[in-house]
């Protein structure tokens, strides 16, 4: 039991990635009503492009820029080529389309990068820090900083810019948003592009800790989805809190029980929340604080 603070710290560290993924899922769901099951594959794509390019000798900044460009392009393509043309299909079928896109992205990644893992060096050299009796890679500080920066940027966009306001208006009442001269499809594109870039950033900072291969996206996507659902699916703030909760639950279970039960517990949590509180557990608490 004395190890719990350490496990919580590990959980918060890994949870930052789930928070970033969940944030992207919540954004897209809020604006378009679509649950994007390819969100985890954007993380994989970003991380893999980054690690692969860095292995070829590219400067990390160049590799990161390329990784974000690739994920952004992939996000735009998903919207323009798949979701926008099929927009009249209904949300459940669009969700199936995102699952198809997830498989397609994985397949393309195998073709381009091969089936093997790729490795990237930690940003500040291979350092660890000790706290509460556990040793944690300093790279997690980058993950936490990236998550914080991304959350702040999304908050500023949504609350301070006319584009962000328009995205919230589409979420609140699509038809009336159109009356204001807002094009909901365009807002959907911006949301998906943004989500893809967020995921790309998450993938880049995670790559030195978890060397990515083409299959790395699916479990990340599911945990991000769990995070978003915990947060009520439409709340960016709730998704971030949800991501940290998923990370902590995962780490504590791994530490106290066994890593074998880790995923079972996380997905059990997802099922339980969907059954008991489909509106999310955290959103009510967050709303009360606002």
């Amino acid at each position: 039991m004395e190890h719990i603070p350490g496990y919580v710290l590990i959980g918060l560290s890994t949870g930052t990635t789930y928070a970033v993924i969940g944030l992207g899922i919540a954004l897209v769901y809020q604006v378009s009503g679509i649950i994007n099951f390819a969100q985890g594959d954007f993380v994989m794509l970003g991380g893999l492009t980054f690690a692969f390019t860095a292995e070829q000798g590219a400067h990390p900044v160049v590799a990161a820029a390329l990784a974000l460009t690739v994920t952004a392009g992939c996000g735009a393509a998903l919207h323009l080529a798949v979701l926008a043309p099929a927009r009249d299909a209904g949300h459940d079928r669009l969700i199936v389309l995102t699952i198809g896109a997830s498989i397609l992205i994985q397949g393309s990644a195998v073709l381009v990068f091969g089936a093997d893992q790729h490795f990237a060096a930690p940003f500040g050299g291979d350092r660890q820090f000790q706290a509460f009796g556990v040793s944690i890679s300093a790279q997690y500080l980058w993950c936490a900083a990236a998550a914080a920066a991304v959350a702040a940027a999304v908050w500023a966009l949504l609350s301070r810019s006319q584009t962000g306001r328009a995205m919230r208006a589409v979420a609140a009442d699509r038809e009336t948003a159109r009356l204001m001269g807002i094009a909901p499809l365009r807002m959907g594109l911006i949301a998906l592009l943004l989500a893809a870039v967020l995921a790309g950033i998450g993938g880049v900072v995670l790559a030195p800790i978890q060397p990515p291969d083409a299959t790395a996206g699916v479990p990340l996507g599911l945990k991000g989805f769990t995070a978003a659902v915990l947060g009520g699916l439409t709340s960016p703030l709730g998704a971030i809190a949800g991501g940290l909760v998923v990370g902590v639950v995962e780490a504590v279970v791994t530490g106290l029980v066994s890593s074998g039960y880790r995923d079972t517990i996380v997905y059990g949590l997802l099922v339980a929340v969907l059954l008991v509180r489909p509106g999310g557990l955290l959103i009510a608490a967050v709303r009360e604080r606002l």
Partner: protein
Amino acid sequence: MSGTDLLELSGLVAGYGRIEALHGVSLTVRAGEVVCLIGRNGAGKSTLLKTVAGLIRPTGGRVLLRGEDISGRPMPWRTRAGVALVPEGRRVFAPISVHDNLLLGGYGRARKAIAAGLDDIYARFPRLAERRGQPAGTLSGGEQQMLAIGRALMAAPSVILLDEPSLGLAPRIVGEVGDIIAGLAGAEAGVLLVEQDAAVAFRLADRGYLLDRGHIITSGPAATLRNDARVRSAYLGAIPAPGEQHH
């Protein structure tokens, strides 16, 4: 038609998929006028306003704005060209603050124009200024209607379409909203008003049209229309005798 026609509909046909709700409707609104559109439930009044605003694409006929055919224009273009709809049921963005609702009304306009518009709306509706930070969904019905009208005005419209603005409001508030609407028509702007409250409609309107199952069956000056038996039956006998004041 005369050069002062702001909005002209000619032979407008529109509906929902296979259901045709308007079967060739013609009407005009001139600058400075409040024109009311009367009709029973289901007559097609909302459909007409939505078609002018661009939410519904007409299958026949034309919508002319200052003489230019805008039937094929997308909604963002119409908003910028000066067509604004205050929809049935107000439809404020409930979770979004009053202030941000107003800013959304100015979507697509220049920053300076939005700032000037905001000052104007807050001066006109001090109650909105007091509540600028609170979610629009927490406003009273009358305040929400003011917000819906203010939001539409943020686009600096010249054609203002109002769909049952007094619906569900307390009688005292109905008078207040009526005064606001009376002030909307100006040198550059005209109002097309759909109103179930006959007293409000005839107090505000200069002219009117009676719509019945997708056809205009009569039109004329408000003073004439209010005594028309068909108009009276559309309002189910709810018209006060001429001269009677509404409070």
